[in-house]
Structure formats: C-alpha cells, structure tokens
C-alpha cells in the first residue's frame, strides 16, 4: 500500500520538470559564448568554409558538384537542416542530414560518399546546416516520422549500460544540476555539427550520443544506425521551434 502511494506520488510529480527550454549555449561561460558568436573566432567556421569549397567541387563518375544541381546553397539549402531527420522515399527509412548528403553523393554524383565523421562529411554537413542558422527547428509532419520519433522517445527513456541510466534521467529529470563540475544541459541538438572544446574538433550529434552511451558504460550503436537517427528525430521534435546555431561551440 505504501509502495502504491509512493508510486502514485511519483507519477503525479514526474511531469513537473522545467518547462522552459534552454539551449546549452545559455549555460556556457561568456568567453565560450563569444567564441561561438564571432565567426572570426568560431573554429567551426573553418569546417563551414571547407564545406563551401566542397559544394563547388565536381565529384564522382558524373563529375558534378552539389552546386551544379542545387545552385546557391544560401537559397536552396536555407531551412533544410531544420527539417531533418526526414523519410527517404527511395530507402523507405528515416535519414539524417549526413545520410541525405551521402545518398545524394552516391545517387547523383556517382561518388563514394565520404565516411561518417570524416572531415569532408562533417564539413559538407556543417556548410549545409549553416544555411539554416537562426531558423527554427521544424520537424516534418509525416506519419512515417511519427513512428520513428516514438521509437526515439522510447530509446531516450530506456535505461542502458552498466550504470543503468537513460538519457531522460539526466537531460529531463536533472537538467540544470551539476554532474561533477558540469551543468547537465537539456540536450537540445540545436547546433550540430558543432565544435567541442573537449574534442578540439567538429563532431556530429551521433558522436555526442555515442559518447554519452559510452559514459554510462553501454555499447553504443554504430554510426548511421537507425537507433541513433530515431533518437535524433525525437530530440529535434523536442526542440521544435528553437533556432539552429550551426556551427555551435560547446565545452
């Protein structure tokens, strides 16, 4: 009986998490915020510049560049990153932005896509996502994606690893508190790919998710795995309306 009462109390108390959504940007030191906001100081802009060069470079059997089809990215790619992950009708599955770029390279350039997390793949993704900087995250309304997002939410809430922790236990229930010295962010993927001072490099959301999973001593899914894309789709829906920051800087 007491246990039932305690459980009921828990169920009632559970939705009482902070409703105000915060980008990790808001919790950073002033110097790190300044680094992100100044394009001359933001290290992520080096990847964006490289991506801009790749955008113009003919590649693959078709000897075609991204620009040959898509033209000026500032116009054609504006808002695109804010809508990913999305369903790929040809593949019949959800793809993230990096996956979409790789599919495009294979299908339309006849090129071998750059491996995930390679310099070239990150640079192109950063360049494309940068075209949506400041735009609100706008996940597509689509029944296929609803199913993927539901799967992502279940994964987000599933305990895993030797430490037996779910994403939600830190990033929903304890966001804003300190894990050792670091404020736990709410986990909104507003700035990927982003430059982490800890990595001394640009990295994808999948790298961040895999790092967190390793942190709880779980076996992370491989890069590109459907589980990681599902979690991203859920997180983007959770962050709907928040402005994109790519390339963000994080500690």
């Amino acid at each position: 009986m007491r246990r039932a009462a305690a459980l009921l109390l828990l169920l009632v108390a559970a939705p009482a998490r902070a409703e105000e959504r915060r980008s990790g940007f808001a919790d950073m030191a002033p110097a790190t915020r300044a680094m992100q906001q100044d394009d001359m100081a933001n290290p992520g802009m080096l990847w964006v510049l490289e991506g801009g060069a790749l955008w113009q470079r003919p590649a693959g059997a078709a000897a075609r560049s991204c620009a040959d089809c898509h033209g000026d990215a500032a116009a054609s790619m504006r808002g695109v990153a804010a809508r990913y992950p999305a369903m790929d009708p040809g593949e019949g599955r959800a793809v993230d932005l990096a996956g979409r770029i790789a599919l495009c390279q294979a299908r339309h350039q006849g090129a071998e896509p750059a491996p995930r997390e390679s310099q070239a793949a990150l640079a192109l993704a950063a360049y494309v996502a940068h075209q949506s900087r400041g735009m609100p995250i706008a996940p597509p309304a689509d029944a296929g994606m609803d199913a993927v997002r539901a799967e992502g939410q279940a994964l987000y809430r599933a305990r895993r690893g030797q430490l037996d922790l779910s994403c939600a236990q830190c990033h929903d229930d304890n966001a804003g508190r300190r894990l050792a010295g670091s404020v736990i962010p709410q986990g909104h993927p507003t700035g990927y790919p982003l430059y982490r001072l800890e990595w001394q490099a640009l990295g994808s959301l999948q790298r961040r998710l895999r790092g967190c999973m390793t942190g709880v001593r779980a076996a992370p899914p491989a890069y590109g795995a459907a589980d990681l894309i599902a979690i991203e789709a859920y997180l983007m829906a959770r962050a709907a309306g928040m402005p994109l920051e790519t390339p963000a800087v994080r500690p």
Partner: protein
Amino acid sequence: MILALLLAGGAAAQPHVVGDAIPTPLTPAPGDAARGRAIVADRQRGLCLLCHSGPFPEERFQGNLAPDLAGAGSRWTEGQLRLRIVDGKRLNPDSIMPSYGRTDGLHQVGAAWQGRTILASAEIEDVVAFLVTLRE
C-alpha cells in the same frame, strides 16, 4: 544448471537482505575506511562525486544530483549503507544511483563491463567502512 551457474558466476554470493539492510559484510575481511575514501573520490572507480558532494575539500568538482555524503554514517546503519550501495534500486526502482553489486537486469552493457559489477565486494566493504565514519 542455470541456477547453479548464477550462484557460482556472480561477483558475490547473493547478499542476505533483511528489511532495508544487508547486515552481514560481503567479505570475511573487514573493509578499510582509507581505501574506501579513495574509491569514493575516484571518478573512474567509485564515481560517487559525479552525483554526490561530500567532505572532500581537495576535490573541486562535485555533483549535486544526490544527497551530500556528509553525515551518511549518522543517517544510516552500516547494513543500510551496504544495501544502498549493492542494490539501492531494490528500495527505489526509479533511483538514478547505479546498483554497485548487481549485474542482472541491465541492458546493452558495453563489452568491457559485461558480467562485471561496478565495484567488487571488497571495494564495497571499503566504501561502507568509510561512509560509517561520516558522522555529524
């Protein structure tokens, strides 16, 4: 057969839970409080200060997700502390505190950690020996 494997294969024999405590030590040798303090402060071994704060003036970065360890020895008996470390989820299934002496009921555990408890029985005894000294 499976039962025999479970009984033989665990890092520790099934500890005897009485109420909300494990009154009997997990090892014949008594725990060592100094070793226990080092384990608690170690971010790779005990992991305790990631979530808890405590009387560790030399440790700059301590967590605030969980109660301060100061006074833990006044709030709980040795046996109560032992159960809370071995398997606190037995008392509160929703707790974020990992069960340090349990390997079942986990999912997707990384290869390096499979079948291993977070701390060995002797380490748990060291931590218990330390925590009972934290009196207010």
